């Protein structure tokens, strides 16, 4: 167990190194980061002096070592647009994004898991039809388009919610609702189909035939097995929410990291893009590690790295 977790930890560090490698070489993919980062109308002399200032004229291994040592300390250089350290900007924007993604995930889980479980236990019932409708609509409506439509209806016409920004508690409702929508429907589907699938397994029939209380079967036999796919989807979902926040924050002018990256794309502000990319990657890697740990805890059947498994 401890050895397993240690190897996962080492894996995570390697992953982080891989991300840094990719981020570093991504900018250098065309061969000349100076022309990539400078505006198109820049003169040759301007590009040359920019190259000098950023150190792009040094040998690549030295540049990479420099990038790596600075990155470990959270130093990604200054934002080309704001002229202040990029990491400082990212950390300043973080609380807003975490609030948005957190609220979205929480409401998605609270709505989706009960709907999915009810649907799975009573397929074809009214509650199931409702859950499937919600799931299918949530997955079919492009959420940032819905955001635009909701702004026109609820903010411009009806004045129920503010149309942009992060000023009062009501501000978070519309962005979190649209951001969490695809995640919610994904979890409804997953929970429902897992329950359905597990219910038809042989060990459930066995449990019924030996006269166990149905409630015990639901909780001990079915729900415990449903947890396994749920844990993995929650880990991935948070990464998705962070990614999806780029569109939603852009639509609602939500002052978070997503809006920052959307702006950085427009400005071609690569130090800033690198800083956000590495930071979000660290968050997702940490979540993956937690998912792996949770996997081992809830599913003793899955024995990692042991080829000679003694399954029961």
């Amino acid at each position, binding site marked *: 167990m401890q050895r397993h977790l240690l190897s996962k930890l080492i894996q995570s560090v390697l992953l982080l190194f891989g991300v840094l490698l990719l981020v570093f070489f991504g900018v250098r993919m065309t061969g000349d980061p100076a022309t990539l980062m400078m505006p198109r109308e820049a003169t040759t002399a301007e590009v040359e002096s920019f190259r000098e200032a950023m150190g792009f004229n040094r040998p690549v291994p030295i540049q990479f070592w420099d990038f790596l040592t600075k990155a470990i300390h959270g130093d990604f250089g200054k934002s080309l647009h704001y002229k202040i350290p990029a990491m400082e900007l990212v950390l300043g924007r973080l609380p807003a994004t975490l609030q948005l993604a957190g609220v979205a995930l929480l409401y998605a889980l609270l709505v989706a898991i009960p709907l999915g479980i009810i649907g799975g236990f009573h397929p074809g019932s009214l509650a199931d039809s409702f859950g499937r409708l919600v799931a299918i609509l949530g997955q079919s409506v492009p959420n940032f388009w819905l955001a635009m439509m909701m702004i026109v209806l609820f903010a411009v016409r009806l004045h129920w919610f503010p149309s942009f920004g992060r000023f009062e508690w009501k501000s978070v409702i519309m962005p979190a609702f649209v951001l969490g929508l695809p995640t919610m429907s994904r979890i409804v589907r997953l929970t429902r189909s897992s329950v359905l699938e597990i219910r038809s397994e042989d060990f459930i029939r066995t449990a019924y035939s030996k006269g166990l209380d149905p409630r015990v079967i639901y909780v001990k036999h079915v729900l415990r097995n449903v947890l396994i796919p749920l844990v993995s989807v929650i880990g991935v979902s948070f990464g*998705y929410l962070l990614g999806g926040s*780029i569109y939603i924050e852009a639509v609602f002018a939500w002052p978070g990291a997503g809006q920052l990256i959307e702006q950085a794309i427009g400005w071609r502000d690569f130090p800033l893009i690198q800083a956000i*990319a590495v930071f979000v990657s660290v968050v997702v890697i940490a979540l993956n590690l937690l998912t792996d740990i949770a996997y081992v805890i809830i599913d003793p059947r899955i024995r990692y790295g042991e080829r000679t498994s003694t*399954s029961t």
Partner: protein
Amino acid sequence: MAREQALQPKDSLPDVERTFWGRLVYARRFLLRDWSGIIGLLLFLVVATAAIFSPQLSPFDPLSQNLRNSKLPPAWIDGGSWDHPFGTDSLGRDLFSRIIYGARVSLTISFFGVLLAGGIGIIMGTLAGYFGGRVDDVTMGAVNLILSLPYLLFVVFIATILGRSLLNVILIFGITDAPIFARVARGEVLRIRELGYVESAICAGARWGRIIFDHIMPNLIGPLITLATFEMSAMIFYEAGLGFLGLSVPPTVPSWGNMLSEGQLYMVNAPWIATFPGLAIMFTSLGMNLLGDWLRDVLDPRLRRARR
């Protein structure tokens, strides 16, 4: 195959359901009973028809501009006419024709995107799940690496560096979506590998190729076909999102994403410019999601028995 069938007890499953195609043929019966499957199929056929016959179906050239007719409202709103049923955009281009051509762009991107993603992902996931150990570590390490890359950053790199093109968009989706297929395939394989019948096949001396293709893959088809239809509709979204940020196919291509980003500028005064591409995306995804649901029910006989 025929010999194997003869060896099986007659009452295990109806004969027609034994092969993938057999199940699909058998499925027709269920299609007629399941309204959501019919709706999904119809929606999908409408979009596919629009995509295939775009030049024949659209009344106007989707690119021809007419500034005198700019921002005409849809036919049923005052000031609109049936010449332009959905109205026109800011450059006077016919929205109805652009929506039809957009179907072609969206379906091309999502079909080839899923093909690429599924191909890469299933191979990676199955091998990782089956062999475990070092293979699993390396493959899932790569999967985690791609998943831990913020999706849009990847897109930004390729789009800004290689330029906006159809092929780039397909490549981006194909690569960034593969880990999902790999994870699902691996999870299923991990579960199936531990099942008794796989162990007994191993005991009987079956080689790994045979176990993967004969014993594990058939159990993967159901979940993966379902995933593929859902990912196709997801990619139609992704394209819209990229277009919204100005990173999808070139701005001259009438894609639903590009139309949405143009429409956002006129959201308050001419909301129909953004409304129709959004509705088009919604109905296409809805069709595919319903179709996916139906396919899953049909392709997984275990689930269907559970439903009855």
